[in-house]
């Protein structure tokens, strides 16, 4: 890291967190996600990956230690699209702007239209979530995440519920968005291939048993070149990295 440049990514310093009345999920957890990078977090289910994401988002506060995040807006993409079913797509995307308040109505409309355009849903602005496929709903969720021009994107297994085809399409959408917007991203996934395909680094979390805090057992830089293409999925280089990660779990 260059001296004199303020760190503008995500940092965990000695973080401890446990749900009330339960043993801590992590203890003395430290990690760094440099600004503008995509970092994936993989690990067995239940070891606290989602919780880690929520700490990064500021939805939870650590019991000890500190979490720092980039200045600017944060966005969260949930496992399920979490669109409000009574709102049209456009109104759903508008929600973050409404909550922030102070946004001029016309500016909001422009931002919404732009966000929908970026994910290819411009023509579906007036549809209700009910009328959309899983892939389209996920894209809408991404559009909503983008509408505030976030500097930090947190994604919790966003593509897990989609079929293979939709997933691949959304990988492309996500990478394209990242290239355009330049946000820092922390992506939790259980799909190791996906983690390698999308990210610059992969963090591996593993738990050593019931009641024992999870730890970062691995921090692997993904040396594959960008832009990442679908063909890389068949590339033995990807496979090698993936297998290496699997060993660490």
């Amino acid at each position, binding site marked *: 890291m260059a001296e004199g440049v303020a760190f503008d990514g995500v940092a965990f310093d000695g973080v401890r967190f446990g749900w009330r009345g339960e043993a801590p999920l992590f203890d003395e957890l430290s990690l760094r996600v440099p600004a503008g990078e995509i970092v994936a977090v993989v690990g067995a289910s239940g070891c606290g990956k989602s919780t880690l994401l929520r700490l990064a988002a500021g*939805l939870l506060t650590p019991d000890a230690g500190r979490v720092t995040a980039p200045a600017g807006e944060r966005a*969260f993409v*949930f496992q399920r699209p*979490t669109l*409000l079913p009574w709102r049209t797509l456009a109104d759903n995307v508008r*929600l973050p702007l409404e*909550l922030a308040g102070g946004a001029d109505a016309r500016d909001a409309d422009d931002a919404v239209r732009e966000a929908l355009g970026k994910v290819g849903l411009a023509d579906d602005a007036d549809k*209700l979530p009910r009328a959309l496929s899983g892939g389209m709903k996920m894209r809408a969720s991404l559009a909503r995440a983008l509408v505030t021009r976030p500097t930090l994107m947190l994604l919790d297994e966003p593509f897990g519920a989609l079929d293979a085809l939709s997933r691949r399409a959304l990988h492309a959408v996500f990478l394209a968005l990242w290239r355009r917007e330049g946000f820092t991203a922390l992506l939790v996934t259980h799909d190791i291939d996906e983690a390698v395909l999308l990210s610059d680094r992969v963090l591996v979390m593993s738990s050593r048993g019931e009641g024992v805090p999870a730890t970062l057992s691995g921090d692997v830089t993904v040396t594959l070149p960008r832009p990442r293409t679908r063909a890389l999925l068949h590339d033995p280089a990807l496979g090698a990295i993936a297998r290496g990660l699997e060993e660490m779990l």
Partner: protein
Amino acid sequence: MSRLLPLAAAALLLLAWWGLSLKYPPVLLPSPLEVLTEGWSGRAKLLEATWNTALSSAGGLLIAGAFGMSGGILFLRSRWLEAALYPYALLVQTVPIVAIAPLLVVWLGYGAPVAVTTAAIVAFFPILTAANVGLRGVSEEQVELLTLYGASWWQQLIKLRLPASLPYLFSGLRTAVGLSVIGAIIGEFVGSNGAPPTLGYLVLQSSRSAQTGTTFAAIFFATALALAAFGAVRLAESRLIDPWHGDSQ
């Protein structure tokens, strides 16, 4: 074919009624023909009475809705208020109206206010229950979404919980609407002075001079009123709720 089934059932019921009316004196069970004749010749007064009873039950329903919804929001805001007041809400449900109706007459005088009050009393609890369940019928992720974007408790209520509660509310309304008609009529049994005419008063008056044809006609008008109100709720539901409800998010 399935459209004909309710009609066939109605025809069978009519036949059964006619058969029974041959067995019992008219003072107990008038024949369908007599009810039709009495109902037709007295239709002006019956219609006027139905209108007045309808107004009372609508008024009661509105009050019940306001209190029920407010109660639900209040209980959401404060757990200990819920613990303190819920038993009294339950008490409202269980108090027999015929017992308190005379007291209501003392407080409110003869006329519509008594019927509005009794209608409100019976319709209150289903709406409160629906509000209670509905306001909490949101997913954790939806709440997190709004929290992330800095929504205040009120914004969360207005933008998330209230719209989410509408399907439950309509479900409660479907029950409450029929109850409000019954509640109004019971109130009229004790608190109506016949000017303006009400269904409760007509039932009382006609049965006391053994004019059971009119009594039953009044009962039919009451049933028709309840059905019409139910239909109105269903219509509103089909416009406001059905288009977007049922999407699994």
